[in-house]
């Protein structure tokens, strides 16, 4: 029998229907699986780092605390190895059944359960604890001697959904948290109940500054707010003409803050701009103020030194020092200023004139890492009860494979590297 192509095609298409449907079902099942896993918010923000001191009986030790993605870890600043857990009874190092030392590490599960804000350290009955908040606004109380959460799922903030990247602030009674959903909430420190909420017009991404009963809040809505910490009542608000992502710095009775208006502002505690200085680009980070000189970088890669005693007059400026944004607060130590940038480099500058420090080979002292640097630099000194002979700078990148690197402040010699295990 000879059949035309049209007829054969129809017959065969009926036969292949089952195969097609099978392929379709498999594809759908795979998609459902992918959708259920959801997109991990990787690339959301950068690691939060700080230097902490914990005690066991009379022993005090210093560690670097890092919160990034699903981990919170402690790292020994002397050698870059994970901080070994101590037995709270005898303060001896703890080890697993194979005799390997146990390191301090806290991990949460779930794609959205990630950390970008810095945990706060506090004490309960003389024991160290940490309070951390995840990107999806779950609060975790973490026992410092045995890093496990008191509640695996954490505690949510009543009536609030959204995200948090701002660092926490805590006083004797309250926890203050800036939320992406426009609010700053004050929570009862014991129950986590909302005591008051203050609403701005946009997200709050920076740590509020608490000083003398007043909470200074920076918002993406362009305003700096002064709020009574006890009641949440507004004291004043000030338009800074651009998004504000920095925590204000208090120095000699004045607030110093920057905004996307490409300006650094000096603000009185009454809420008036007393001086300002125009920068070349948006300013994201907080300034560093040492010896009345304010040091700050902008997102265009320029660095500025401004005199706070002389109307924010320019002491020096390094235009386009870096090829990438400078988000991190410059680190000032003795005669040098260290600046980290998104171009993956750390620059050593002379504090007096901003010129590059020259290394032993006659080249500017610059160290390059394998990933962008947006986190603040950490200064580690021997007097911080760390077993080192000279000060280090610890640089934190966005790469978990080479998360941190320590260099000597003097000549940039690499002392250690740390990767998430």
């Amino acid at each position, binding site marked *: *029998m*000879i*059949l*035309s*192509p*049209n*007829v*054969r*095609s*129809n*017959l*065969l*298409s*009926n*036969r*292949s229907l089952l*195969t*097609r449907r099978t*392929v*379709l079902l498999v*594809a*759908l099942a795979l*998609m*459902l699986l*992918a*959708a259920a896993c*959801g*997109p991990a*918010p990787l*690339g*959301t*923000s*950068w690691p939060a780092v700080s230097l902490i001191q914990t005690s066991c009986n009379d022993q005090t030790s210093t560690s670097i605390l890092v919160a990034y993605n699903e981990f919170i870890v402690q790292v020994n600043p002397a050698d870059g190895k994970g901080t070994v857990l101590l037995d709270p009874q005898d303060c001896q190092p703890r080890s697993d059944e194979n005799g390997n030392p146990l390191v301090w590490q806290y991990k949460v599960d779930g794609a959205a359960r990630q950390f*970008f804000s810095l945990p706060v350290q506090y004490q309960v009955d003389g024991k160290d604890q940490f309070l951390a908040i995840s990107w999806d606004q779950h609060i975790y109380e973490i026992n410092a001697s045995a890093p496990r959460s008191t509640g695996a799922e954490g505690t949510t903030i009543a009536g609030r*959904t*959204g*995200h948090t*990247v701002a660092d926490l602030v805590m006083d004797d009674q309250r926890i203050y948290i800036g939320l992406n*959903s426009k609010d700053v909430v004050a929570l009862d420190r014991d129950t986590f109940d909302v005591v008051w909420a203050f609403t701005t017009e*946009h*997200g709050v*991404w920076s740590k509020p500054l608490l000083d003398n009963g007043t909470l200074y809040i920076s918002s*993406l809505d362009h305003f700096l707010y002064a709020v009574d910490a006890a009641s949440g009542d507004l004291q004043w608000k000030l338009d800074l*003409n*651009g*998004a504000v*992502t920095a925590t204000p710095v208090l120095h000699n009775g004045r607030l110093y803050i920057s905004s*996307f*208006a490409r300006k650094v502002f000096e603000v009185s505690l009454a809420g008036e701009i007393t001086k300002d200085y125009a920068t070349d*680009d*948006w300013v*994201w980070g907080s300034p560093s103020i040492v010896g009345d000189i304010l040091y700050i970088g902008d*997102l*265009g890669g320029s660095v500025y030194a401004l005199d706070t005693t002389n109307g924010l007059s320019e002491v020096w400026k390094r235009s386009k020092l870096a090829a990438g*944004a400078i*988000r991190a607060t410059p680190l000032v130590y003795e005669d040098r200023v260290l600046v980290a940038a*998104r171009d993956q480099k750390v620059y050593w500058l002379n504090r007096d004139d901003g010129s590059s420090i020259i290394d032993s080979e006659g080249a500017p002292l610059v160290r390059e890492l394998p990933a962008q640097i*947006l986190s603040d630099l950490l200064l580690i000194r021997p007097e911080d009860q760390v077993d080192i002979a000279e000060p280090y700078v610890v640089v934190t990148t966005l790469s978990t494979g080479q998360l941190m690197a320590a260099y000597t402040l003097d000549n940039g010699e690499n002392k250690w590297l740390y990767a998430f295990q």
Partner: protein
Amino acid sequence: MWDLILNPFITVLTLLYSVFGNSAVVAIVLFTIAVRVIMYPLSAQQMRSSKIMQELQPEMKRLQDKYKNDREKLAQEQMRLYREKGVNPLGGCLPLLIQFPIWIGLYQAINHALAATPLQLIDLSGRFLVSGLDQLVPLNNVWIGMDLTQAPTANPSYALVLPALVLVTTYVQSKMITPPQQQPTDGQPSQAQAMTQSMTTVMPIMMGMFSLSFSVGLSIYFIVSNLVSIFQYAWNGQAKWENVFSFLPKKSAAGAPVISGKRTLKAQLEAEKSAAAKVGFSSVTADDVEEVVESVPVSKSDAEDKEPPKSRGPKTKTKTKSAK
């Protein structure tokens, strides 16, 4: 290099935002429409090229069948056919290749401008080509109670309408541009056709799923983009509404009715037999017709098949030639 596309897009998007009452949604809608309209000449060229290639399919199939054992000759004949018809076989690809980075740029511009995360916001610095626009950052991202930077699942429940609309508009768009099923000449089931059929079902569901995870702002972009695309195909006369609405009579590439049930299959076999007899070629017998028809499994559509669909066009060239 990528910034050459992204930076102007972000600038225009923010300009629209500032002109139209600081509404990010209006800016996204207008910007998407504007980009698609500007790219219309490219889209139209692609559609024209696609249409001509569809029309050439019967002839191409004939050549493939004729020279199935001589690939070199087949290639020569195909090129001759292209030359005769004045068609560039890559004519449909080039406009698509040019448009692709534009679409990606549009998507990225919306994603960047909404700046849902610190890394996205920091990445906005230095991207504005008009001074003063950066003072508007971050854009107001709330629209009728929905946060445009958040996924529908993190918004009020009515935000779930958006992924549904993404699914529906993607389905309509992909269905209406799907070429009619070609009849293979080699007796083998067409993998490409099976793939196309699967994709028109899988793609809308995939886009709907993605929209559940992506921000609401991007869902709006997807919907508007699909609607503009549907409009453009309809405007160009290439919208195959019969693919979307099953009650409309279906047509093959050259206008012949598509066989969908036993009755129509039988009708076609009878027609083939008649046509073959006219040219003195009568190998298809009445028994063959019955045998073939009975071998086809009964489907629900057969039960509902009251009469064969009316033909809205002439019989295909392929059919006539196969009878010869």
